């Protein structure tokens, strides 16, 4: 109780005025950030975590308003400043100097028409630096400090010439330009690949150590928070469900919701109760992929090789996972297997049909009922103008199966299969939540009774609790219907939960393959090892945190 915390939020409430009503986004929350420490604010979409962070930097949307409570910032000299109802010009003096922001999406957070150097120099110029040489020197120093090689070159480049991870480093450099006391990191890594995510989080940690700044880390990922937070605050529906020292909250969560989050976080718990499947000896594989190669022509240069030398088998009734980061070729492979793009070379055999030999037209359309694809984004894969019933009946109409009433009852049956109530049938996609839409997409894939379902990042756009529900649903459907899955994912934690065999891809080439336990417990290839080490929460074994929970695998 001696030193006041750097940032103290007390009983903060925020409402949004929409045309219809006022929505209470944040309802009386308390949290604090201490100097040199990380407070992680964890919650799913709509929890109010973003609103709270927006309020802390004075950037609530136009229709948002703080209706009560206090946000206090303590200076290095111990002076306390109340931020609620601070006039705009006073806010301008704080932003960038005492409060820095690390934004979410490094791609759209940098001005595309200005150089990296100009972006990093911007806070300096805003806050009155004029000396060109001094600014340049500081920019180079900052770029160097966030681990970018050749700062002078980087400063002259444009954002599109840098990778996502490098852009995020640039944004961190800009946030640090004036040595702020408080860093607000808004989902700083959710748009990045997992190995990059780990290095960026390490960088933030290291900078916090060296500068003594306090960090307010906003994340949807309890595992990320578990790794990095001194204080953990769990939010849902605008309220705080639980808060306390990170280790204590994780070891003994008191709130029901925190326990659900923990159980559903794939990297922390085995949340899906699933029996691993073994192919019966001598059984022919359902899918045989050999030496798959896919090129994309590029005007004016050699074709881009997206995938090369991919080989794997999938036994009937099992799940094979393709794992890799962006650019690994996993989606290209999945689409080739689903018959959406003919590979440049190689062979794909599904259920004794050579997919690459299908000419299109009739043969290809017939093949469609054997393999179905579930897309990543449930918002884009359903026609917004169709009712859910029409969406589900369409594959049957396409393949001329059944009468009108048979199609309708098949649609209702499949809604039930994915645990959706029958009244959903008459709704439109926009009336459903993301998880419900993904259930509809799964039902549509199943209605043709396929042998193989390709799940293209089918759960990665969903909140963690919803993700766990969908994974459980997929496991149950596999059990009931004897389905074979090809699971495409960037998330090794998800793969560990639901896959039997796995191929790890990197830049279009396979690096390692085998049974999940073997690959994940004893990876041979260093890239697999790096991927595994980068999983947030990897350091915390599930049983260690929660001894009574016995992993099912």
């Amino acid at each position, binding site marked *: 109780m001696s030193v006041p915390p750097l940032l103290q939020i007390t009983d903060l409430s925020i409402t949004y005025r929409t045309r219809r009503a006022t929505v209470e986004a944040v309802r009386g929350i308390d949290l604090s950030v201490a100097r040199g420490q990380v407070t992680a604010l964890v919650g799913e979409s709509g929890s109010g975590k973003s609103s709270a962070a927006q309020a802390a930097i004075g950037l609530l949307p136009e229709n948002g308003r703080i209706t009560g409570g206090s946000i206090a910032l303590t200076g290095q000299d111990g002076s306390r400043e109340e931020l609620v109802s601070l006039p705009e010009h006073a806010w301008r003096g704080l932003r960038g100097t005492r409060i820095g922001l690390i934004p979410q999406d490094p791609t759209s957070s940098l001005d595309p028409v200005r150089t990296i150097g100009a972006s990093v120099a911007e806070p300096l110029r805003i806050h009155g630096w004029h000396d060109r040489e001094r600014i340049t020197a500081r920019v180079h120093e900052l770029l160097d400090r966030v681990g970018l090689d050749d700062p002078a070159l980087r400063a002259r480049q444009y954002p599109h010439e840098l990778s996502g991870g490098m852009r995020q480093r640039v944004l961190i450099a800009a946030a640090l330009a004036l040595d702020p006391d408080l860093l607000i990191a808004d989902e700083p890594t959710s748009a990045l690949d997992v190995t990059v995510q780990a290095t960026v989080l390490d960088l933030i940690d290291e900078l916090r150590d060296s500068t003594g700044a306090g960090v307010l880390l906003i994340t949807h990922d309890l595992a990320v928070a578990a790794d990095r937070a001194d204080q953990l605050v769990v939010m849902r529906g605008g309220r705080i469900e639980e808060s306390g020292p990170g280790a204590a909250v994780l070891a003994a969560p008191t709130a029901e919701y925190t326990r659900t989050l923990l159980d559903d976080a794939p990297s922390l718990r085995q949340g899906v109760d699933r029996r691993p499947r073994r192919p019966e000896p001598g059984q022919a594989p359902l899918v045989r992929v050999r030496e798959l190669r896919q090129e994309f022509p590029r005007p004016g240069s050699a074709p881009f090789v997206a995938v090369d030398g991919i080989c794997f088998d999938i036994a009937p009734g099992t799940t094979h996972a393709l794992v890799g980061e962006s650019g690994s070729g996993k989606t290209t492979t999945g689409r080739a297997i689903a018959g*959406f793009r003919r590979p440049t070379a190689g062979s794909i055999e599904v259920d004794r049909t050579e997919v690459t030999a299908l000419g299109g037209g009739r043969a290809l359309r017939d093949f469609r009922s054997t393999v179905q694809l579930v897309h990543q984004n449930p918002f884009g894969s359903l026609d917004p103008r169709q009712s859910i019933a029409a969406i589900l009946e369409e594959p049957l109409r396409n393949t001329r199966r059944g009468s009108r009433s048979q199609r309708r009852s098949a649609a209702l049956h499949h809604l039930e299969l994915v645990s959706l109530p029958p009244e959903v049938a008459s709704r439109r996609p926009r009336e459903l939540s993301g998880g419900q839409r993904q259930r509809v997409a799964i039902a549509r894939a199943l209605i043709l009774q396929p042998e193989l379902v390709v799940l293209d990042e089918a759960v990665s756009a969903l909140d963690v609790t919803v993700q766990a529900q969908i994974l459980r649903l997929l496991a149950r459907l596999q059990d009931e219907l004897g389905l074979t899955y090809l699971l495409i994912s960037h998330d090794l934690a998800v793969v560990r939960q639901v896959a039997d065999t796995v191929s790890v891809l990197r830049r279009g080439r396979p690096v390692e393959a085998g049974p999940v336990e073997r690959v994940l417990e004893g990876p041979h290839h260093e890239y697999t090892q790096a991927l595994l080490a980068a999983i947030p929460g990897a350091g915390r074994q599930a049983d260690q945190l929660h001894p009574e929970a016995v992993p099912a695998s």
Partner: protein
Amino acid sequence: MHYLLRRIGGAALVLSLAFIVAYVMLTALPGDAVMARYGNPDLGLSAAELAQIRTAYGADRPALLQFLDTVASFLRGDLGYSVQTGAAVSTLLAAALPSTLALALLGLLVAVTVAVVIAVAATHGGLRHLGATRALRSTLRGLPSLMVSLPVFWIGIVLLQVFSFRLGLVPVLNASPLQSLILPVLTLAIPIAAPLAQVLIRSIDEVSAEPFVAVTRARGASTRWLLTRSVARNATLPALTMAGLLFGELVGGAVVTETVFGRMGVGLVTAQAVAARDTPVLMAVVVLSAVVFVVINLVVDLLYPVLDPRLRSTTAAPARREAVAA
């Protein structure tokens, strides 16, 4: 270099096609310009005399040869002869051009100024925090859509009515060259300012919603800083693509404005040519406008990579989304 050549080739192709379209519509299909001019029985020309004139004009030769002739003479700068007056079209237009240029340039200047002022005022974040100006902002946002709904000729007449006849501010008779420009410039500026302001408002809104603008705000930038350094350059890019369209509006506006105010100029010449079915004059105006339009668009295309670094490196073009293999 490849980019440059492709753009120039495309522009040349569109221009050639536009020339063919204009030729077909205004020279080949309307029939014989000679007959239209001299065929009137009142002139009392005999069939033999007509045939002689036709030969002199080359009107009796095969269509393709006539077309190639026209192409060649246009390339030489010979735009044909007015059916109505017999004068060379190039002389006619050259005489009318300076007055129209003055009108168009001033009109464009006023229009751009008005559009920028409206767009900036309507989107200005600083006004956002003053509740009283909410109504003002929505009025400003509605203004371009009102301006675009007014018939140009009507604007001219109403301006004339108000400023010259009611208020007596701008003399109708014996006006100095400058005075006689005021109302036409205003008339011309309104329909050009309106779509420009609409595009500017939309692109300022879009750019302002980009995360990088919010990030700049989080660095402590003031509203003016945001507008001048972050938003302005990004929001000008879409407005630039309007250049060709605005030129079209300018041409149409000039025809109407010059007719309303009885100002000599290319627009009035065009209107009179249509009334008299003087197709060679209209043909020349159409072809010249198409040339200017194509050149403007070519310049915009070539300027784009200069203003947007993302378009500079052609090698790093993002891989196209896979097409649906059906």
